[in-house]
């Protein structure tokens, strides 16, 4: 499968061309779950567009369906109805392996609980996504080190997760999301487990990334965090509200 990515300039040089199709384009997306006899509609008729270079916050209380929305945006899940195209690829019609390849090349994830591999050095954690792109070892480790340095974690490359503070772990996780130079960075409550200072630092880092040209979608229930984004959409009861 050949994936066409929107033109991304070299680091720090955003290339925003409005003529290009949106990176994320959703029309009438629904996601329902069957729980025994009952069908739960987690998302109903969602229309959403995210352009390349945008910083979007998806805001909503817990249970609103924002996590489901994030899973679909992140190509971890498929809509049960409606169309979703990611950078021109029809996600609903791709199989698991194609979705995995799409995630590998185009999406960097940042999670609330960091999800670093235990007993593994920061460097190896950051280079893990490159492993699945088939990047040779030497280049993996060079790129991982570079990504850690961007996040100011160059001197902690040999530390394992348990030797790092929450804020440091999240910075390693951000480096991991960056290392593949993804078209989209998807952050799911990235400040949820952090104290306010570390949280503010993470938000500042996301801001930096945005300024250097990355497209960022941030999912949060925290209005202050959401305020960092260019644009906010609100999710309530599985629907986008203005």
């Amino acid at each position, binding site marked *: 499968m050949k994936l066409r990515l929107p033109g991304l300039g070299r680091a720090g040089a955003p290339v925003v061309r409005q003529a290009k199709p949106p990176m994320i384009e959703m029309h009438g997306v629904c996601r329902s779950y069957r729980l025994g006899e009952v069908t739960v509609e987690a998302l109903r008729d969602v229309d959403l567009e995210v352009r390349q270079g945008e910083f979007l916050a998806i805001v909503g209380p817990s249970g609103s369906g924002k996590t489901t929305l994030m*899973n679909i945006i992140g190509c*971890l899940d498929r809509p049960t109805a409606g169309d979703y195209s990611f950078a021109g690829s029809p996600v609903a019609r791709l199989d698991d392996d194609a979705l995995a390849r799409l995630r*590998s090349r185009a999406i960097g994830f940042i999670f609330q609980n960091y999800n670093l*591999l235990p007993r593994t050095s920061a460097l190896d954690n950051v280079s*893990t*996504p490159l492993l*699945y792109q088939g990047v040779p070892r030497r280049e993996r480790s060079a790129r991982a080190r570079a990504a850690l340095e961007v996040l100011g974690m160059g001197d902690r490359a040999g530390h394992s997760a348990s030797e790092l503070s929450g804020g440091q772990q999240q910075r390693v996780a951000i480096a991991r999301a960056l290392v593949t130079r993804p078209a989209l960075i998807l952050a799911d409550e990235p400040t949820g487990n952090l104290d306010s200072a570390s949280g503010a630092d993470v938000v500042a880092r996301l801001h930096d990334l945005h300024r250097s040209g990355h497209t960022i979608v941030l999912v949060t229930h925290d209005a202050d965090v959401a305020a960092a984004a260019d644009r906010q959409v609100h999710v309530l009861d599985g629907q986008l509200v203005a």
Partner: protein
Amino acid sequence: MSTLELVGLALSRLGAARLRATMTMLGVIIGVASVVALVAVGDEAALGVTRQLQSLGLNLLTVNPGMSASTGGRPSGTAQTLTLDDAAAIAGVTGVAAVEPEIAIQTQLTAGTQSVTTSVIGTSADYPAVRAYALTRGSFFNAVSVDNSLRVAVLGAQTAKALKLGSDAIGSTISINHLPFAVVGILEAKGTTGPVSNDDLVLIPVTSMQHYFNNTPRVRSIGVSVASAGQMTEVKSWMVQLLERRHATAAGGADDFVISDQTQLLGATNSISALLSVLLGGIAVISLLVGGIGIMNIMLVSVRERTREIGLRKAVGARAGDILAQFLVEALTMSALGGLLGVALGLLVSIGIGAATGWGFVFNPLVVLVALAFSLVVGCVFGVWPARQAARMDPILALRYE
């Protein structure tokens, strides 16, 4: 992701949980080690038996009086139908290299103050050639001594020791049933064949035996050395014809002698070792099966424990096949490592047993390869299921797993 990288990942993972990995591998280690050790010990024993048979005499045929057990006759040794003339006639058969007839008595020996009772055998000068004896001291009596009924004796190693005859034994005199004999040689020790010592005996010329102790032409056995192993069957049948003619055996009647060779003994040894191999194969399959179940068990636990890791790997781009390969290679690495350690342990044990028994060590590369291959197959078979469980996890659920 290359295989090498997968193995590296598996090794670092196993290194992080060393105790658990070792315990898991223990089943495979013990299985492989026991197979390698037992097969090697079996080989060593077979080699020991073969060597011992060869040490009894090269291409040896033994003629005993009596009827063969298979024809329902009396056991050999009860009849006294073989004579020295038979032995002389056998010596003329084509392909016979050497012949030694034996007339034996049990009697008392004395040397100085030491006295023992043992078997004294009257035989020919060809005895050491036929029975594959070497001498540690002196020399065996020659044909001239036999022709002249000289009172010379060659002692078995054990008998010499019992009589406390040392370096000055050659030329000393022992008395056999109160008659003095000159000691001319001492045989090299051979050890035992079954319960029978091959070193507790005294050899004197067969003519001296007849002259001084037992004036009979009848012998208890005739040992025949055949010139080459390929002629054994041929020579044996000629000897049968010769003896039947000499003993005037009626056509179709039962022979009054038995000719035995080592192939029967070898055959028995081989059938025992074949049975042993089957039993060992059974042990191998069972123990490796148990080892494999151990690996599967731990891999299932491991997959469960590492659900979040699997979720994360999938989120950052691992395909189902990548996860499957990762966990399969981990199981394979464990079973292969266990197999290697088992082979090493098994070889150490068999070297030890070979040294302790004096059988020597036999290295059988085929067993090592088969054991390793089998442990890999076990790792593969029992690793697939846990690996599939890992590969089929839904990344969303896996990431949220607590």
